[in-house]
């Protein structure tokens, strides 16, 4: 009978323990959700983690000053395509701030939760900032990489993420393609071989831009990282300027990461006002200054600090509209299943 009583005591203790833990956890959970009446969910792409970490407190303070309301901003970061997929599958984002228009277009076409004319609702094609694609190489540039040509040379290991899942990777790809078109005077076949040669040099395709940066900078793989300008600056800052050099090609693509309110979700949650204010805030002098500080190219350079702007090199930039006839077309031709990129990857 001794064992019985022990078991009973043990069982009682176990039940009490479980109950205690769940009570504790419950109280904590309720606690944290009770703190903020309104929570805004910003679903964003990989490299903007630091940017929104800086912008969110500024907006929260601004909103509090204007309305007296305390709000909370939740952030979710992953590859741009992955994030669009999550929103399509029901992630209740109030705003999406993604790497490229095609991903927001996907939300429009699959769910209708974003208005079709979303890009007209905010200035500058709904892009509060732009960026471009540059190269990050190891100190001293041992492989002498100066331009897109050098990426296609044999023996150069190129690190870039997977265009199928990463928005940044698609900009990288289009940058190479645009350069190729210019170099080969519009010869598509030669351009394709050129881009193919670059991807042949890629020993790894991470799913997101940040994964590639980690692979290159932290794990020491590859000779050159094709990256967002902001990502290249951030990496060399994080890991030490003595380890890497940024190489700016003479010509590259003008990347326009857009933002949009997810109408379907904000109407259901009653957060439209604050969501719209959040996106509009991105165009204000305060936010534009933060944007420049984080190595993005602000839509309104006049609001940014001069020394921040000075860091951003001047180069010839082409847009997706000029070269590819818009994102919808570029997406379909190059990145859809059976598109040019699939073809390039075949061995």
């Amino acid at each position, binding site marked *: 009978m001794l064992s019985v009583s022990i*078991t009973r005591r043990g069982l009682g203790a176990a039940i009490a323990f479980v109950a205690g833990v*769940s009570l504790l956890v*419950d109280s904590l959970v309720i606690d944290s959700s009770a703190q903020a009446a309104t929570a805004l969910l910003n679903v964003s792409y990989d490299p903007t983690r630091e940017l929104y970490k800086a912008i969110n407190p500024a907006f929260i303070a601004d909103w509090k000053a204007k309305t007296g309301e305390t709000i909370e901003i939740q952030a979710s970061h992953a590859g741009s395509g992955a994030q669009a997929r999550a929103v399509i599958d*029901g992630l209740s984002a109030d705003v999406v701030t993604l790497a490229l228009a095609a991903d927001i277009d996907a939300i429009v076409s699959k*769910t209708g939760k974003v208005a079709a004319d979303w890009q007209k609702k905010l200035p500058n094609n709904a892009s509060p900032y732009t960026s471009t694609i540059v190269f990050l190489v190891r100190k001293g540039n041992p492989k002498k990489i100066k331009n897109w040509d050098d990426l296609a040379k044999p023996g150069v290991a190129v690190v870039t993420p997977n265009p199928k899942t990463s928005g940044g990777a698609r900009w990288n790809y289009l940058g190479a393609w645009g350069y190729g078109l210019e170099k080969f005077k519009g010869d598509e076949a030669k351009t394709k071989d050129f881009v193919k040669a670059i991807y042949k040099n890629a020993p790894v395709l991470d799913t997101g831009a*940040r994964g590639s940066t980690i692979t290159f900078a932290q794990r020491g793989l590859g000779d050159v990282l094709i990256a967002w300008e902001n990502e290249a600056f951030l990496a060399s800052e994080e890991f030490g300027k003595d380890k890497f050099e940024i190489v700016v090609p003479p010509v590259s693509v003008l990347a326009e990461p857009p933002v949009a309110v997810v109408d379907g979700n904000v109407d259901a949650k009653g957060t439209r006002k604050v969501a719209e204010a959040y996106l509009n805030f991105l165009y204000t002098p305060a936010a534009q200054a933060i944007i420049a500080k984080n190595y993005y190219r602000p839509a309104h350079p006049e609001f940014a600090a001069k020394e921040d702007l000075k860091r951003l090199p001047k180069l010839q930039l082409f847009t997706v509209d000029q070269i590819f006839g818009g994102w919808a077309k570029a997406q379909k031709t190059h990145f859809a299943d059976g598109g040019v990129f699939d073809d390039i990857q075949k061995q």
Partner: protein
Amino acid sequence: MSDALAPAIRIAATRRVTEEAPLTRYLLIGVAVAFLGLFLLLPLAVVFTEALTKGAGAFFATFDEPDARAAIRLTLLVAAIVVPLNAVFGICAAWAISKFSFPGKSVLITLIDLPFSVSPVVSGLVYVLVFGSQGLLGPTLSSHGIQIVFAIPGIVLATIFVTFPFVARELIPLMQEQGTVEEEAALTLGASGFRTFLTVTLPNIKWGLLYGVLLANARAMGEFGAVSVVSGHIRGLTNTIPLQVEILYNEYNIVSAFALASLLAGLALVTLGIKTLLEWRYAGQIAGRRRH
């Protein structure tokens, strides 16, 4: 399948006649030690070393971060829901399967085993298919304001799926081994069914139960693939510890990533410690005599 998670029953015997030459013996021990060291111990050592590269201050600072705390809270919450549920299920399934004979039993066991061999990614995917906005029930539920995937319920469901068989798999062979004689005696003496379970069956299976619960708990707290698919990765809200580890890792915050990872590694070590202790102390009551 049942023996997959089986503890070893060791016979510490010295068999002079049937032993290998000392050289062979040392060679084999060397191979095993080298292999386990290389594949198991070294990765474990890396976790703790990387976590401490910037000293104890940086290590502990990790746990002051609100996002990290939220991840720890969420992980505890999920485990606190999932483990008891699966334990109750495990007991029920083991009772039905071991104390009765009925046709289709082996099919039932195979189905219970199924989550073991389903890819974690698929486990997450199926819940997106059911509860996602494009899924079967998602639109109906969301029109009532109920969110399953990309919220805590989805994480709980995916975790239940991946830890589903652990307790049942531990208890079924054990209870089969023990048979029904003791329960029948108690019933004959007039005890009620539930009382029989509490006073006769439970004492017999308590260590096996604890053992299954431990394994289920370790997996529940550490699951990555399935949870990653259904989480939505909202900071401070739907990130469990493993997902937060990935996020920190992706934010160049390698020290914090490994510090948080070391928490899970520590949990794994504690689990293994208790498990070893249980096996050593209560070998008979955990495994019974296994079905060989």
